[in-house]
């Protein structure tokens, strides 16, 4: 995954200083340390609002966010919904291993029913979250699925996500060889699985069709499920700013404030 991120940076000739890598907490979140770019390793589950602060205040930067399934859908579940709905311009890549890796094998919100972990020795009984459905329902404007065993595909998805103007979400199946080996063998042709791509005739602007694609679990489909254009939070804020600024022409800040204060005399 990391190697791919480098590749992407190289391929797109991005200026390292213009890239920011933000992550939450989990095995998958240690990304920023390995990238030669400004990076932030924030707290568990809150990488998205942090990254939103960066994206909205610094529209000149590319903001990439990495995290695990627990980070995204458990502790950070609400932030996922709201960042998607606000359509904040950033790319969120969730490395889904269906388990809590860093804390050593507890049930995650994407662990399948029956998964035996340290917190569900008899097998998990809670219905797992379907990240793709979750993203579509929350209002993400770019939703794609990939797997770490197909690097070229990951790169394609990352590139497409980066070019998308809005909240782009990628679920990347990422096997935890330590605690959940074989979880995604069904999607790995080298392990006897399959790698079916999203059908060519799939309409990426059709929300229901995208939802339908998300229904298939293993191996499921790979590629872009959903992609639409909707004004971003960044654009909306920029518009509010420009309409407000117009009224004050080229006044220096202190004079704008003085106008308010004069009314309070």
């Amino acid at each position, binding site marked *: 995954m990391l190697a791919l991120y480098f590749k992407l940076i190289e391929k797109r000739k991005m200026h390292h200083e213009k890239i920011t890598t933000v992550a939450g907490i989990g095995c998958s979140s240690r990304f*920023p340390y390995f990238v030669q770019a400004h990076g932030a390793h924030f707290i568990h589950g809150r990488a998205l*609002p942090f990254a939103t602060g960066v994206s909205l205040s610094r529209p000149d930067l590319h903001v990439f966010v990495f995290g695990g399934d627990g980070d995204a859908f458990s502790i950070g579940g609400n932030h996922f919904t709201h960042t998607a709905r606000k359509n904040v311009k950033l790319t969120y890549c969730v490395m889904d291993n269906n388990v809590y890796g860093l804390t050593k094998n507890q049930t995650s919100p994407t662990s399948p029913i029956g998964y035996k972990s340290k917190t569900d020795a008899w097998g998990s009984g809670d219905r797992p979250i379907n990240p793709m459905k979750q993203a579509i329902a929350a209002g993400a404007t770019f939703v794609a699925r990939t797997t770490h065993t197909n690097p070229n595909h990951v790169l394609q998805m990352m590139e497409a996500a980066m070019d998308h103007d809005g909240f782009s979400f990628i679920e990347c199946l990422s096997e935890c060889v330590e605690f959940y080996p074989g979880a995604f063998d069904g999607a790995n042709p080298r392990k006897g699985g399959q790698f079916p791509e999203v059908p060519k005739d799939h309409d990426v602007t059709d929300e229901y069709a995208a939802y339908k694609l998300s229904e298939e679990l293993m191996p499921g489909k790979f590629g872009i499920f959903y992609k639409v254009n909707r004004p971003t939070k960044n654009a909306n804020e920029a518009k509010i700013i420009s309409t407000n600024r117009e009224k004050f022409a080229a006044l220096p800040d202190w004079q704008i404030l*003085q106008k308010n204060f004069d009314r309070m005399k």
Partner: protein
Amino acid sequence: MSDATTAAPAQAGGTPQVSHISEAVIRIAGNSQDGIQAIGGFLARLAGRSEQEVMTFMTIPSTISGGPSIFQVRIGSGEVLSAGDEADVLLCFYQHSYENHLGSLKKGGIVLYDSDHVKEIKPENETKYRHIGLPISSLVVEAIGGTGRDKGKNVYALGLIAKMFNLDVPKLHRLLSERFAGKDPKVAETAIAAFNGGYSHTLAAASELFKFKPGENVGHNQIVMGGNEALAYGLIAAGVRFGAGYPITPWSDIMELLRKELPKYGGSFIQCEDEIASVAMAIGASWGGRVAVTGSSGPGISLKTEAIGWAVMAEVPLVVVDVQRGGPSTGMPTNVEQSDFNIACFGGHGDSPRVVIAPSSVEDCFYTAIEAVNIARKYSTPVIILTDQGIASRIEAFKMPELEKICQDITPDFTPVADHKPYDLAAADGITRHLAPGTRVASGKYPIVTGLEHDELGHPTGSPKLHVQMTAKRRNKLKKLGADLPTPTVFGPPEGQVLLVSWGSSKGPVEEAVKQARAAGDAVSALHIKYLNPLPNGLEKIFEAFTHVLVVELNDEGFYGYGQLGAVLRARYCDPKIRGLTKVDGLTWKIREILDRVKAMTK
């Protein structure tokens, strides 16, 4: 009403006599929808324009509409330190307002009531207070026509008050027109008609009318606003251009104002899904290069503590506003309390030194906000502004700030660097310097910010040695700040029997208590502490010169008998003469209360 000098002897049955006064406390009691806050606002603004000092106190019901509400305004030609213990004049609209607030009236004070609603007057009250009953509701209908009813009542009452206190009518007319400008011109006309109706009332039933002596703040060019407003404008003046928050009383005013105002300056304020997201977003923006703000009250502050701990660890500048209210939990949302001292100074896990400053007045809110931003930037640290409901909702007049001088530009610097270690242990001043993302680092070694213990570049480390060094670094930079802070000066003589220590909104009442105690011959002084964490040095020298050091706080005495700041002062100075003088009734201090408690504790 102090130093009343009577201009003319009372004439039985004739025009009322006019007394010249230097200050007055007026309490208006009714329901929240009566626009009581608006009358108070007009009076405060008028006082500001008349070069007088003014301080107000209001209660807002926690329910949205309806419910009793009061506004108390104290106007003085000289210094005004508190909203006043007792009212000189009580204006009440309903029987319940009459009954609940008569007790706040000074003996012999004037109660002006709406006789359309207040029907029961006990004879013993009539001997204790001067009653003036007027059918205000019907008079309003007469003045502005049938549909007026509740609408113009407040402005009519303002007219009555203007008459009673000989207020400057042209100035009030101007204030009314300004307030209602832009809307349908009829609205302003109706308001003026209602005001004139009240003002032209003869008030024949009054035995006495008043006139303020000229204000002392001559040429001050005063401005009038509330504490939350002042704080929000202070942040703007300081150069803050990004904020994030989640609504909660009484913090919401600040976020609403910033949401509306920041775009004018090219900034934004984002309403988030919760307080955790808002602190995270503000930290993200701060790391983006320009210090950002978040804030909350009560439970929202609890939610922010984990992320504030991250900002301490990563040493990212941040401003957090805590508008304290009664706690714990949902507590008393519209009441004042100073019980967040502990969470502000120590909230969160681990050793996490941060800066806490408390403003003491509306004016101080403006300047404290600027100072908080500058400390956050200079020391690369989170700074918590610990204000409270008492200041948040009161209105004061203060000197127009020199905005051209004060407003600052804090645009980040993106000058490329050869190499950079943000957490340089050898830095001369011991302070962390972050590069704003977007800054090119020629060596290609980009720094990282993290909540894990880290090395000088920001990369995680498990090294015990580095944890010791970095912990000391985070502590020492703020100890240095503490050493640079000015030692506060004593209000009153620097030695004596009792030293009252205050923080936050209690400054005014405590200093007024000192004045009264000294007038009565008691050796009482006061010390106000603005910088709560770290504390300034030199306090022990001040304490030495007093027999009793009583820390006046609006919080509980706790298991060990001291308030929250009191406990820290005890711990720091190991001095048994430091004791707590605390209360948690949800109201600001009355001068009488402080004086009685001092008497009881020192006899």
